[in-house]
């Protein structure tokens, strides 16, 4: 599975309240949620992300609430993948469960800059910064998590396995 996009960069401890402020939790339509993605930090984010972007961030991305509205908003705003130095655990699970690739790579955060064009190979564990012509290695996700991403999320994977079992 490969992902290509331009980079938007963020710092440490990007919490779920800035990713999707609490007042929008009454929304459930992914398109509506997408309009408010990252609103706490950048009101223009959803416009910038429209054409497909990769977020590169520091430590503890997605800390705070368990709200799945946060990764849903990012994914539907156009975020193709998130590279961070580390993730908060609930956000990490939520993102994979809805089919949004997340991966940890400290070196990538140090070297990659905003607007660089980046290609991620999730299976081989490689990030290529095409703008800078640099390659970074990361430990690929365990195979059962990659499988969730490959099948488009946890629900689709469960559906597929239930179908197979009933055959």
């Amino acid at each position, binding site marked *: 599975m490969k992902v290509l996009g331009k980079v938007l960069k963020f710092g440490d401890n990007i919490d779920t309240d800035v990713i999707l402020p*609490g007042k929008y939790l009454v929304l459930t339509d992914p398109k509506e949620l997408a309009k408010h993605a990252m609103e706490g930090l950048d009101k223009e984010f959803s416009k910038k992300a429209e054409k497909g972007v990769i977020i590169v961030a520091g430590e503890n991305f997605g800390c705070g609430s368990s709200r799945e509205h946060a990764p849903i908003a990012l994914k539907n705003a156009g975020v193709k993948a998130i590279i961070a130095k580390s993730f908060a655990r609930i956000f990490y699970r939520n993102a994979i469960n809805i089919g949004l690739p997340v991966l940890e790579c400290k070196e990538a955060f140090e070297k990659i800059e905003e607007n660089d064009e980046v290609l991620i190979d999730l299976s081989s564990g490689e990030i290529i910064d095409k703008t800078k012509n640099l390659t970074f290695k990361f430990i690929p996700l365990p195979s059962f998590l990659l499988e969730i991403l490959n099948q488009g999320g946890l629900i689709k994977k469960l559906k597929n396995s239930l179908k197979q079992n009933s055959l």
Partner: protein
Amino acid sequence: MNLTEKILAKAANLKEVHPGEIINAKIDCAMVHDLTAPLTIDAFNEIGIKKVWNPNKIVVIFDHCVPASSVEAAELHKKVRNFVKTQGIKNFFDVGYGGICHQVMVEKGFVKPGEVIVGADSHTCTYGALGAFATGIGSTDMAYVFATGELWFKVPKAIKIHVSGKFQKFVTPKDLILYVIGKLGANGANYMSLEFTGSAIKNMSIDGRLTICNMVVEAGAKSGIVPPDEKTLEYIKLRSKGKFNFQESDKNAVYDKVLEIDCEKLQPMVACPNSVDNVKPISEISEVEVDQVFIGSCTNGRIEDLRIAAQILKGKKINNNVRLIVIPASQEIYLQSLKEGLLEILVKAGAVIGNPNCGPCLGGHMGLLASGEVCVSTSNRNFIGRMGSSSAKIYLASPATAAASAIYGKIVDPRVFGEN
């Protein structure tokens, strides 16, 4: 093994487990609230299974927008009520029947030592106070649980927090947990479990234990736990039936880190804007004027919290420039504080009392902040925009510090009321 590992091993039907190992655990109880249930229901319906795995192990509690704060919230409530009915879920706490989910879960006996409990809310870690393994998950994971009754976990590494000594007057468990988060950092316990031990924890009430376990997630932890003891038993035997599984960590249990804390030296602590680990002792806080004080939330809306606030506010008036919002965490606490005369004291001091719910903690309703305003809050997060305007500033503190600050109109050390 440590206590958390023992609980996970049992739930996964394994003899032992090790940190980093991925296991599949049976879930004893699953909780959703009014804002995470709707996405869970959508995901569950997408799976195509008609019935949940066990309606008696699912608890649904309305608390985030209660009573409905908007038409959108009302529609969500309607959708969830409909699901509850269709699925035959009896453990449903609608408006007027429960309160904040994490308080209702422990009060109504859904949490027992040794159990594995998941909640679609990050503060589910609260239940570790009663010796359970409890952690927050998202709505899709919850839909998976609704369908199968199981979930995968990575066995966490552990940190031991050993607390000795006695708290000074008006220094509280909230100050302790803020101190711990300040020491560990916002991601210092990422993916890990925190185990609280020592004489100060043994002597701590269940309310206090709930407060410290509630906030472990603010250091990134997956769960927090207090080894169950006679206080735990006394609390749960009034609320739930059946056999209780009391275990403790082995003497040779492995911890990644041990933090030793002496309570005697602990001052009131404040988490300054805009991160929960930006913690300072109150003596280092310079003059901060306050517009609003909020006493409530799943962290500090319990009876002991209201008692300490009332003790400080008795016979006094809050500062003219301050709005004081008090929200008991549950209907049970509301009634108890009414009986004890606490609400009368608080109202006479100038407080407005809200019905049990999350209130302004997450910026939903009931006291949002305008641009540039300053709030002292007993809740758990001070992120940008958390309680309203993104330029408002939130200082997290104990109910004692909050009450004292409401009187002075600025952040003050509650120990000034020490001898009263």
